[in-house]
């Protein structure tokens, strides 16, 4: 692997936000393609971050810093990737369901998934089923992720899945859910495709869904 | 109306030392023998004390109050029992061995044994083997109790037992040992007849010795 790519990966791991653009440019100047830089440099770094995080050696603020660093480089690479054949790992639509203003868990999932190379759109909190529907039509995600922190708002996840079914969009997307009171049993009950106990496993689950695991 | 036996037992249970001699007098007036008053009154009271203490329903100061009243009763009954040539519980010589100034545990054993109806001769602490030998000769006890709190002075228990043997007195007495670092195995090793893990256990052991004898 080229030295520059290795440095890029290291910069991602260390969360060196400021040096990312410069390093990416350097790599391009060396003649590497945007796809190579992404796959071997940035994603290499993020994979390492994921592993270290799972092993308990890295912490959320560091992971987020790494994700941010990757994003910095992506600013430069994205136009080139869009022009070529390259693709992100997949697309994820996220939202905290209706009635729930708790944001933190879902934000974490979003950041982790971005770090894993997903294109993430976050609808925010208190999201109505209709908002999910129109976003699915427009954004065409591979995965829809929903979260709820309250036992009361949990069932709004069921409502949302039902609405997606009724709109005939259920086959287009995988649905994953999460949040402190959510369990696998509940996920099965309301017909979700998967459940994740925390942000790290949510990102793993998403990768599994798109066959990138 | 409760019987004189019940009253005596209650007086012991409540630790009412002043009342016990009067009640004994009353019982004698009613024609009860010393032996009857002891077995059906005082001893019944103390048995209840022991049972309650074991259950955690009585506290040391209360047990000692009861022991005091038992002792007061024995003070009255002992000459009468001797007169009637009744068998008495017996005499215990107690001491903390040479080199050891700790004697709270041994004192507690003494008081508990008195409560059980024994006559107790307490030699005090830091007692050399000769002091035990002299006391055996003088008081003709049924039981000798020794305690030590330190491992170094535990050894002195062994020396003391040996000295008793050499003085030819070993067969006259049962020997029990105790103290925090002492256990059954050690008691066996130095040739003691028994080991009491705490004061109530020592008093039970003493009773066992005399009833077996």
């Amino acid at each position, binding site marked *: 692997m080229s030295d520059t790519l290795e440095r890029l990966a290291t910069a991602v791991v260390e969360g060196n936000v400021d040096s990312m653009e410069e390093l990416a440019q350097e790599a391009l100047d060396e003649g590497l393609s945007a796809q190579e830089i992404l796959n071997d440099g940035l994603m290499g770094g993020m994979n390492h971050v994921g592993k270290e995080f799972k092993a308990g050696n890295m*912490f*959320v*603020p*560091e992971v*987020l*810093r790494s994700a*941010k660093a990757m994003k910095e480089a992506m600013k430069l690479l994205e136009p080139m990737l869009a022009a070529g054949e390259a693709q992100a790992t997949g697309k994820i639509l996220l939202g905290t369901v209706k009635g729930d*203003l708790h*944001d*933190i868990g879902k*934000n*974490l999932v979003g*950041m982790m998934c971005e770090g894993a190379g997903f294109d993430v759109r976050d609808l925010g*909190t208190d999201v109505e089923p209709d908002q999910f529907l129109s976003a699915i039509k427009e954004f065409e995600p591979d995965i829809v992720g929903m979260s709820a922190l309250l036992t009361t708002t949990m069932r709004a996840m069921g409502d949302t899945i039902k609405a997606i079914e009724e709109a005939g969009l259920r086959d287009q997307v995988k649905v994953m859910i999460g949040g402190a009171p959510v369990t696998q049993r509940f996920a099965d009950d309301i017909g979700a495709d998967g459940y994740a*106990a*925390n942000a790290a*496993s949510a990102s793993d689950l998403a990768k599994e869904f798109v066959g990138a695991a | 109306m409760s019987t004189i036996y019940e009253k005596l037992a209650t007086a012991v249970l409540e630790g009412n030392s002043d009342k016990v001699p009067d009640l004994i007098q009353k019982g004698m007036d009613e024609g009860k023998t010393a032996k009857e008053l002891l077995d059906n009154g005082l001893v019944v009271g103390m048995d209840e004390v022991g049972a309650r*203490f074991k259950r*955690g329903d*009585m*506290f*040391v*100061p209360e047990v000692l109050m009861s022991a005091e009243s038992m002792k007061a009763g024995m003070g009255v009954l002992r000459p009468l029992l001797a007169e009637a040539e009744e068998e008495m519980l017996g005499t215990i010589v107690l001491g903390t061995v040479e*080199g050891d*100034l*700790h004697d*709270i*545990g041994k004192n*507690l054993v003494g008081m508990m044994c008195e409560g059980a109806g024994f006559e107790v001769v307490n030699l005090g602490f*830091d007692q050399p083997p000769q002091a035990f030998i002299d006391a055996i000769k003088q008081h003709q006890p049924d039981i000798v109790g020794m305690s030590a709190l330190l*491992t*170094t002075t*535990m*050894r002195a228990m*062994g*020396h003391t037992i*040996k000295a008793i043997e050499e003085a030819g007195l070993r067969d006259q007495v049962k020997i029990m040992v105790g103290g*925090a*670092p002492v256990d059954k195995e*050690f008691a066996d*090793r*130095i040739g003691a007849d028994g080991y009491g893990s*705490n*004061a*109530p256990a020592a008093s039970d052991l003493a009773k066992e010795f005399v009833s077996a004898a």
Partner: protein
Amino acid sequence: MQVKKTNYTVNATPTFEVLTEEEIEAIYFSALRVLYETGVRVYEEEGVEIAHSGGAIVEDTTDDSSLVKIPPWMVDKALATLPRKVVVVGPDREHRMELYKNQIYFGAGSDTPFTWDPYTGERRRATYEDVKNFAKIAQAMPNMDFHMSLGIVQDVNVGTYDRWQYLAMLEGTTKPINITAVDLDGLQDQLEMAYVRVGGKEEFEKGPIFSLYIEPVSPLSHSEEVIQKLLFATDNGIPFVYTPCPLAGATAPCTLAGTAVQALTESLFGIVLSQLRKPGAPMIIGGLMSNMDMRTTVYCYGSPEMALLSAAYTQITKWLGVPMYETAGCSDAKMFDEQAVLEATFNATTAALTGGNMIHDVGYLEQGLTSSMEMMVATNEIVDRVKRILRGIPVTDETKALDVIEDVGPGGHYLEHDHTYTRFKDLIWQGPLTDRQNWENWDLAGRKTFRDRVHARVLEILETETEPLIDEDMYKELRQICELADERHKGEELDFDMFV
């Protein structure tokens, strides 16, 4: 412009007190009264003579002892020369205890007859190997600052086990050690060993590598051996702990204030005697103060009264200006279980909050009769938690973070903020043995309990190969001192082994 604050007092740590100054004074002056009017019994002629020539009244002399009464002025005089700070170091000179007001150091307890074998899971008599292993554990524990044996070596001669115990500890740790001695001869031998360990008497005097544990007997009784040790330590520049173990309700008054009065009386006698012998002799007072459980007759090592009384006594020592020997990290539980840590959490937290200097008895179970490696490792983690709390709450513009709150605003989050990124490792405590996984991960990882994790850590330490702390020649030299002692004391032993 941000102007620096004036007229502004900061609690850099939490503050904690049991007694007011007036209450401390009441206890102190009561102790002076007992020391003068009741007196203490002394079983050693030289001690009596020193006290007497220093101004004490001597009464009721029997063939083995005298009643010694100390007038208050003698105490004032002794306190004037008593060092307010005592230093004990490790043989490596890196581990170091500066014992004075509010400095806290944790360490093990000594001389338990029994120990829990980490391999068989059974309670049995302690051996040389156990004591060495305990020292090894203590060496590996960052929050253990000094060491005591946590076991009586019982696979050697009884009369000389103290030397072997010291040797075992020297093999396992380079932290300062608080030794016990069987008798004066044992103390002399161990001092010899310490000279060997640091390279001579002079080196020892520059910084003593052990302190000596001396225990007068409550109530108010100072045995021959105790006084001999006190005088020897004083003469030889050995800092010593003069620690009665009053038992409220049995060998001391049932009220905690009364127990403090009696303990202080006993300590003050030690102070007076040491300062009469050699003004400026370093000593540490305090010790184990607890209550007798009136339902079981045991000497409580895990009761709230012990924690409370130790805290109160620490305040008294701070007021007097003498280093304190506190007690914590111990329990009445028979084995390392939930009770053991419950009690240790309370007494270790209280000791740390109070600021007693040498906090000993970490690792004790069963009222000090059994030691446990698990208990020591667990207490190390408890102390680590408490130390996080002792860092207090700094209140500054940076920590109040009003601007950060404004930046993030309602509904935002702080995870990505620099304010979080730059601080989280320092501010969020992490314990190596504390588990915070979610259920699923914990379940997958085999549902390990704290006890499982602590046990694994104990074995890990024991099985990690380490460089010997003393070289072969030095070991031989130290061992020879022990063997010579065995030879000298041969005649005292029973004609069979007591334990093994």
